């Protein structure tokens, strides 16, 4: 009997890049964290920026209130980038920056800080996320309209391909699509459609050089994907993406070299499926999800960052992140995973799954193309995602889909993991915001004003001229001491501002079980009130994670309410004015960024000023237990956290609250 080729590789593969998505408070504290993480065996950096930095506001801007240093580090100027990277060898480091609307700016700060360390541009390795489409669809940290945003992306790609050739200028993100409820087919199709939109824009930008440079450009485009707990299908999804990407390069863009068509991706595994109740179970989920992106050699991740067990509770502490890093290290260094050729090679099950996904994705890509491409189809895709997410929630609510600890096996011993004084999460020092505010004011005072002004004028001039690349003027502005907020404001003035579609109007009504009773209650209370029960769903602050707010809005509508939902990023006074003018009976606020302690009292105060102080307010979001009592004492009628997954119950509570508030309780029980 003859033996086939050896199942073992002659040499085990090198492990993927191991990162932890990290950063909080200010540059100094985050730098300390990065150094400790690197000592623990982390091999790359993944920088989390706070929301003001991501959306282009300085720490002293009105919209930044409560958000500074919360979900990431605040970087307002070159000095802070210097501090952030102090002592980290940038010629050897591979740094991923989760930054989108302001990607060109943060890349410029990074390049100048590296230059000051004596590291030239062509030595730099890393990734700027720089994917605006998924910001419109899911994540919400956009700043400019689609046209100028695509130009900024094309500019950074055109610049890096010649100046910073080892940089991945964009990560096409399907990660956030899954977080917004995408099915595997949707995740593949929308990511590929997005890549097409980007590549078409770059091709145009490159002009005469397009033919020569499209290969290297194609080769520098990487993906940022998600992996859920259905890890077999999830692995098939990645193989399907590799196949489609290869085809796209060859057929649409004529990329001839194989190495340029290789599907390269980084991954952060699923957060959507992590639960607040029995949070220790999340460790198992994360481990299985990590298998989805490592098992098969031909579609293995280049870089991995794993969430921590307590993501649904709040911000992870350094120890929580270390626990996640150890999981990667065990997988890479203790198991035999890296010793073999592709273990699914020749598997009929895997081939069948991949074929199914490829076919489905092709159909969905054709639909997007018919609508004029990914940018034109934002409304369609957003509506489709909201609908898929609702279907997912419905399946969990009706027990069609099991989530351990949520709808099955719910009895639990108390968790010792949450017993500590900190409740098992990281709490950002409330002094950070004031410190950052003072620091940026000082920076502005001490810099050469003439130079900064000149740099901003040049930036505005370049922005107005579509023929020019934004990068050189941006790098000059970084050197001149311009701040993040000034850079973005200059571009806002030229490009205008933008509000993305909410998708809730496009979401088709699903026949949700158990709505008949709820509907009846809404009708009864509405009749007693004299007009239809009206709810305002508001998202104060810069947090763009709107999935929860959207699901509440759609479900309340399906239950028969009139729902006012105006999208993300509203100031407390905008929300309060809408509540008063729209004559709503109840207000629901959603905050996931941890800034509820600052923002909720501001909304309550604004409601009083607008003459709507008697309207009851409920809050939903990632709210630690300790803050729930605090919010109730501040005047919030009810607080919902990720453990409250039953939407119908929440809606029922809200109806009862309105009834009680208007003295209608008796009518309800009649």
């Amino acid at each position, binding site marked *: 009997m003859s033996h086939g080729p050896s199942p073992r590789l002659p040499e085990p593969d090198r492990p993927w890049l191991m990162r932890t998505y990290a950063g909080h408070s200010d540059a100094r504290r985050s730098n300390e964290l990065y150094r400790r993480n690197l000592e623990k065996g982390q091999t790359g950096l993944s920088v989390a920026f706070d929301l003001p930095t991501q959306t282009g506001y300085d720490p002293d801007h009105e919209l930044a209130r409560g958000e500074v240093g919360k979900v990431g580090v605040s970087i307002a100027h070159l000095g802070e980038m210097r501090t952030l990277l102090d002592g980290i060898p940038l010629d050897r480091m591979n740094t991923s920056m989760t930054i989108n609307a302001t990607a060109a700016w943060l890349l410029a700060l990074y390049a100048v800080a590296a230059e000051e360390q004596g590291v030239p541009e062509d030595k730099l390795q890393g990734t700027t996320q720089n994917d605006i489409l998924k910001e419109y669809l899911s994540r919400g940290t956009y700043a400019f309209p689609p046209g100028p945003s695509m130009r900024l992306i094309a500019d950074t790609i055109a610049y890096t391909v010649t100046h910073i050739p080892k940089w991945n200028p964009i990560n096409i993100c399907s990660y956030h699509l899954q977080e917004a409820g995408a099915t595997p087919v949707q995740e593949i199709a929308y990511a590929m459609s997005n890549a097409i939109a980007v590549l078409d824009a770059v091709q145009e930008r490159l002009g005469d050089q397009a033919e020569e440079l499209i290969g290297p450009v194609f080769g520098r485009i990487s993906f940022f994907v998600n992996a859920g707990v259905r890890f077999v299908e999830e692995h098939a999804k990645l193989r399907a993406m590799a196949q489609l990407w290869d085809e796209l390069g060859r057929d649409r863009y004529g990329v001839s070299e194989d190495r340029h068509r290789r599907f390269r991706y980084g991954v952060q595994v699923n957060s959507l499926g992590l639960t607040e109740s029995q949070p220790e179970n999340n460790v198992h989920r994360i481990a299985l999800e990590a298998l989805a992106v490592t098992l098969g050699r031909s579609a293995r991740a280049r870089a991995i960052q794993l969430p921590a067990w307590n993501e649904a509770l709040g911000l992870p502490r350094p120890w929580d992140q270390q626990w996640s890093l150890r999981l990667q290290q065990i997988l890479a260094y203790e198991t035999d995973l890296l010793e073999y050729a592709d273990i699914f090679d020749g598997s009929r099950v895997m081939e069948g799954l991949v074929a199914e996904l490829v076919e489905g994705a092709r159909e969905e890509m054709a639909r997007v193309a018919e609508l004029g491409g990914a940018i034109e189809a934002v409304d369609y895709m957003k509506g489709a995602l909201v609908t898929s997410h609702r279907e997912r929630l419905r399946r969990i609510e009706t027990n069609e889909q099991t989530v351990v600890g949520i709808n099955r096996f719910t009895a639990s011993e108390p968790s010792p993991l949450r017993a500590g004084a900190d409740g098992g999460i990281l709490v950002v020092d409330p002094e950070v915001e004031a410190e950052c505010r003072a620091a940026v004011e000082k920076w502005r005072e001490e810099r050469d004003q003439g130079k900064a002004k000149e740099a901003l004028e040049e930036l505005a001039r370049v922005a107005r001229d579509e023929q020019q690349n934004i990068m050189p003027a941006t790098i000059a502005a970084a050197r001149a001491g311009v701040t993040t907020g000034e850079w973005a404001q200059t571009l806002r003035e030229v490009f205008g501002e933008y509000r993305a579609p909410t998708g809730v109007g496009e979401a088709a009504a699903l026949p949700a079980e158990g709505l008949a009773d709820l509907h009846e209650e809404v009708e009864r209370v509405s009749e007693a009130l004299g*007009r239809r029960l009206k709810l305002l769903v508001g998202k104060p602050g810069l947090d763009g994670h709107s999935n929860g707010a959207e699901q509440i809005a759609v479900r309340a*509508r399906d239950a*028969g309410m009139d*729902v*006012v939902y105006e999208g993300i990023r509203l100031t407390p006074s905008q929300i309060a004015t809408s509540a008063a003018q*729209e004559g709503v009976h109840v207000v629901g606020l959603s905050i996931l960024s941890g800034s509820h302690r600052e923002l909720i009292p501001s909304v309550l105060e604004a409601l009083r000023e607008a003459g709507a102080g008697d309207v009851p307010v409920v809050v939903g979001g990632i709210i630690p237990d300790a803050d729930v009592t605090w919010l109730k004492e501040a005047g919030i009628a009810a607080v919902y956290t990720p453990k409250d997954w039953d939407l119908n119950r929440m809606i029922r509570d809200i109806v009862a609250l309105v009834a009680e508030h208007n003295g209608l309780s008796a009518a309800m029980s009649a």
Partner: protein
Amino acid sequence: MSGRAALDGAALGARLRERDTAVAAAVLNLVESRAPDARTQCEELLKAVSPAALGAEAPAHIVGVTGPPGVGKSSLLSQLVAGWRKLERSVAVLTVDPTSRRSGGALLGDRARIDVDPRDRQVFVRSTAAGNRLGGLAAPTRAAASALAVAFDVVVIETVGVGQSETEVADVADTVAVVVQPASGDVLQFLKAGIMEVPDVLVVAKADLGRPAQRAVIDLRAALKALGAMSTAVVAVSSVAPPTGIDELIEALDAHRASLDLEARRLRARRMHALADFAAEYGDAGLRALGGQRAAERFLAEQDPGHDVATLEHVLEQRADSGDSPSSGH
């Protein structure tokens, strides 16, 4: 503004007459209410803001803005409101949302939000579900428009649609502006085919697109000329930075209002309002008892011009009851 006080129509009317814009939300809560005593209070309110009570027509310019979904009405309105505020005019915007589901609920404000300074108390924005009237004006919107016209300088009614909605808005508004998407020929075809009444102002959106917008302006002007509708202004606007055409649009709206026989238009509006309320209350059977829509309109045209909406509605009810309408017995 809660409880009984908010349901006192006469008191709300008095405050509107003092041009107190702060009661706008309470006015809307009242006109939207179907509580047993709300209808009476709403009649009181309309009486308190009628020309008889004011001694003149309400001073506001009531502007209808309508057009297909996605044409950019909300961004246009954001710019228009800013333009009017620069002229120190107070503005109330009533948006009528077409989404109506079998659940009865609606999602409001989902379309790109009309962006205004939240601290500016001289701007009021309220969205209302169209309810069961597909694409049509909800009865409360008519009442709200005539009431708020007493306190605000400008009252905007925003509706969605092409071909029908502008007819309904024309029954309420002094000036109707239809917003047109450059590359879409719908409005052009509707105008030529006579499906759509000629609006007072045609707005070509997305002028930043350049040639398609210029083309649309030329085509629309030619079509209007062929129809002999020379007085309809055609204005191209862009709401993306830097906005253009907004001042011209405000001028065109003002010019239409200045050329208008306001008393005749408002009188017709009150009569159509009464008829719409009557139809909402008594349905097709009620209309048949009046001899049909056209007969009812002719009958209303003979009534005292001084009647307020409530009185006109009572007159219609009496006529329907008495059975002496021209077609009764058919």
